[in-house]
């Protein structure tokens, strides 16, 4: 906290670090977010990086706030470029008030740059590679965080290293800290951050971890996937938990193998997940159709990035909604969920396993690079009733896998569990699961499968209203745009506008109808070029979307940008 705080000073600081891959941006982000949270500040970090192992220009934005925040800002209060490319890349976002700290020796001339001699300080501490610790030290010194926390963090962070490296990093960080403190005294950066004791005990999670934890809570014990950004993080997280939780983890030879393995695993009684991105999911289409035909539960995590084809591998987009809705040949039911927050990433992934099991169909969890790579603190995850609702039965000798029932749901047996035989077939089949070309049966089986689509509505997740229910204008969003819309609307207080966030995209929840009818002006915000959800909404609810607020340059919406675009539409005469 800054000692010379006055009235109306910002309670929300936006720090941006930029540099080449390999320059330590990630370790600085990890260090700062942990230290800030430990100090009782709300934090939110979001990354932008290029598809390469070394070089390029990567950046991370860290928001530090007195209240919960989880959306990117356009504004930069403190910018630390680690190389010239970062300065060039992010220069357009800098304002007169932005504080720019950097090592003059390694950067091109920039007016207003405050010299932070990282390399010299690191070298004085023993090694130029301690520069990341200097940077962390400088920022926490500037923000007035206590040195003991920083010191404890470094000791733990480098605990696997020789004592000279631990000591060197501590000395480097302490020197950085002094630099930061000195800078704070000059008053160039003014803020009024309030620390909260409760925040220090919050969970600090990324989207990847929230999905992975949700999978574990949903009883997932099998994951087969082929690495593809940004879907790989969940696979990696579960691989790290494999020993502790007894998981089967397999890096498949391709996405086709991955989904067919997942289906074999569910058939034999596992709860299986595949994690992929658009291109990989496209390869899985036939397998998705197989899940529909054999009425297998399946959970697919589809982590979106900009396409078509290879697109922008490390950026974000909400462009695969139509793919998720329509992938797979033939007609079969499915459920598509799109979490808007870490809490939903956890709870919906967990729920996906139970719903897939209950309704015996594929569930697609639609996320994106922005949501997965973002990191924030949250007080808790919903852990009540923490045992999966397994739906399989022990079979007897006259068991038939596809017994025709009123609900369309047939008890699902497992091979080796009971006296019956469990037969599933990608061909049209009879009640016992054997291949059949009986055309009357074909109609009955199709009706049985498709009947589950309406059954699913019993568990439909209502959209969440953001703001008051006396709105004239309703702004609809889905998935990862939840927090940015929430904040943008918060900045438009007093206007008759509310938001409506959908986390169940298919089948669409009937609970939305009344809200949509009430809207005199309907807007849709989404991260793609055509307004895929807007079209779906118009078709499903027979409504008219007046404006589609779209973004498709690979970056997520920022709060200011969305606020301004909403404002211009609200101001426009009807």
């Amino acid at each position, binding site marked *: 906290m800054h000692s010379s705080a006055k009235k109306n000073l910002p309670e929300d600081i936006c720090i941006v670090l930029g540099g080449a891959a390999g320059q330590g941006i990630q370790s600085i982000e990890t260090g700062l977010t942990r230290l800030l949270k430990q100090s009782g500040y709300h934090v939110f970090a979001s990354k932008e990086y290029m598809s390469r192992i070394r070089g390029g220009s990567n950046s991370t934005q860290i928001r530090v706030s007195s209240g919960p925040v989880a959306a990117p800002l356009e504004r930069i209060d403190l910018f630390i470029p680690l190389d010239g490319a970062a300065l060039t890349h992010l220069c357009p976002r800098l304002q007169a008030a932005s504080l720019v700290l950097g090592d003059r020796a390694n950067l091109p001339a920039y007016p207003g740059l405050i010299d932070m001699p990282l390399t010299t300080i690191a070298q004085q501490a023993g090694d130029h590679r301690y520069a990341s610790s200097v940077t962390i030290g400088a920022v926490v010194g500037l923000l007035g965080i206590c040195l003991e926390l920083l010191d404890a963090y470094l000791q733990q962070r480098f605990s696997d290293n020789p004592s000279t490296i631990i000591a060197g990093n501590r000395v480097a960080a302490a020197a950085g800290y002094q630099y930061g403190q000195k800078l704070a005294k000059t008053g160039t950066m003014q803020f009024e951050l309030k620390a909260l004791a409760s925040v220090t005990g919050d969970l600090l999670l990324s989207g990847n971890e929230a999905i992975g934890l949700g999978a574990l809570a949903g*009883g997932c014990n099998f994951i087969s996937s082929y690495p593809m950004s940004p879907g790989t993080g969940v696979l990696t997280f579960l691989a790290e938990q494999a020993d502790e939780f007894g998981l089967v983890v397999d890096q*498949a030879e391709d996405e*086709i193998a991955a989904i*067919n393995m997942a289906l*074999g*695993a569910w058939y034999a*009684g596992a709860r299986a997940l595949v994690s992929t991105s658009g291109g990989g999911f496209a390869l899985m289409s036939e397998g998705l159709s197989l899940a529909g035909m054999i009425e297998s539960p399946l959970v697919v995590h589809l982590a979106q990035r900009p396409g078509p084809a290879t697109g922008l591998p490390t950026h974000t987009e909400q462009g695969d909604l139509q793919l998720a809705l329509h992938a797979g040949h033939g007609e079969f039911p499915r459920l598509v969920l799109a979490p808007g927050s870490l809490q939903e990433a956890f709870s919906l992934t967990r729920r996906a396993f139970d719903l897939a099991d209950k309704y015996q169909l594929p569930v697609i969890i639609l996320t994106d690079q922005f949501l997965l790579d973002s990191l924030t603190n949250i007080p808790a995850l919903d852990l009540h009733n923490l045992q999966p609702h397994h739906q399989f039965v022990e079979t007897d000798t006259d068991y038939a896998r596809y017994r025709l029932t009123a609900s369309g749901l047939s008890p699902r047996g497992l091979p*080796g569990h009971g006296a019956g035989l469990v037969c599933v077939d990608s061909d049209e089949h009879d009640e016992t699961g054997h291949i059949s070309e009986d055309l009357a049966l074909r109609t009955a089986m199709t009706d049985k499968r498709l009947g589950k689509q309406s059954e699913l509505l019993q568990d439909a997740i209502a959209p969440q209203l953001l703001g008051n229910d006396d709105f004239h204008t309703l702004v609809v969003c889905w998935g990862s745009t939840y927090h940015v819309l929430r904040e943008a609307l918060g900045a438009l207080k007093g206007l008759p506008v509310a938001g409506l966030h959908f986390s169940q995209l298919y089948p669409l929840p009937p609970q939305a109808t009344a809200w949509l009818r009430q809207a005199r002006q309907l807007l849709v915000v989404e991260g793609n070029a055509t307004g895929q959800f807007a079209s779906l909404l118009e078709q499903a609810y027979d409504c008219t979307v007046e404006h589609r607020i779209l973004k498709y340059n690979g970056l997520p919406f920022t709060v200011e940008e969305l606020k301004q675009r909403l404002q211009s539409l609200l101001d426009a005469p009807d």
Partner: protein
Amino acid sequence: MKAQDYDRPNIDIAWCPGCGNFAILKILKQALAELAISPQNLVIASGIGQAAKTPHYLQTHIFNGLHGRALPAATAIKAANPQLTVIAEGGDGDMYGEGGNHFMHTIRRNPDLTHLVHNNMVYGLTKGQASPTSQRGFVTPLQIDGVCQEPFNPLSVAIALNASFVARVFVGAFEQGVAVFKAAIQHHGYALVDILQPCVTFNKLNTYAWFEEHTYPLENSHDPGSREQAFARACEMERLPLGIFYRSQDRKVFEKQLSAYKEDQRPLYQRPLESTKLQNLLNAKRSL
């Protein structure tokens, strides 16, 4: 158990009269009976094609999935419940064409399953086109000037990849067929059995008589422990040796190496969620 114990009554079999598949079904039932594997403990995963219909014609659990994709499904079934006996079964197009990538990588994984490939060197269900194993010059409605590609040699590929068990049989040799099927099913690890069979409708070149003339049993002196010897025998193309070509000495079984089975041998479906561990994991995220 007796072979008849696996019979399914009143079934409409889709195979042509005289099809080699009938002989394979007979060999399979006999081998299963002699090994006393109950249908309740047996899963046959298959793909698409006339061969892939085989599991519908006996008493067993069935996962009849997509064309070419039986191996990934079979691997996962075994990994989810290692107590099951798992067989992946299909034809040469299914397993060596559409599923070729899975063939290679399943050998690399080495799950404990038996891979039965009906190899009649032609596509039957799509009416007579070339298969990956069709011989050069084989004329079909699609390859009207004859096949110009090198035939796929599954045995030499498998041996090159150090597959843990590699064998070939001919449906005309019932006794040897049963013996090899039994050895393959009993083998711990991936076991390939390439099964030569005629297609009486679409392959007028590789007939029963042709196979009789162009096959012979491997000598008793053949050492399946020698990869070099096995590879050389697998490369013989004029007359095709039959029997167990190769047994690798140094392959670990896929599912036995999985974290899931390090301390717990129960199938995955019998395990409760370890909620305390999940709480601990979450608490660790609080102290970050």
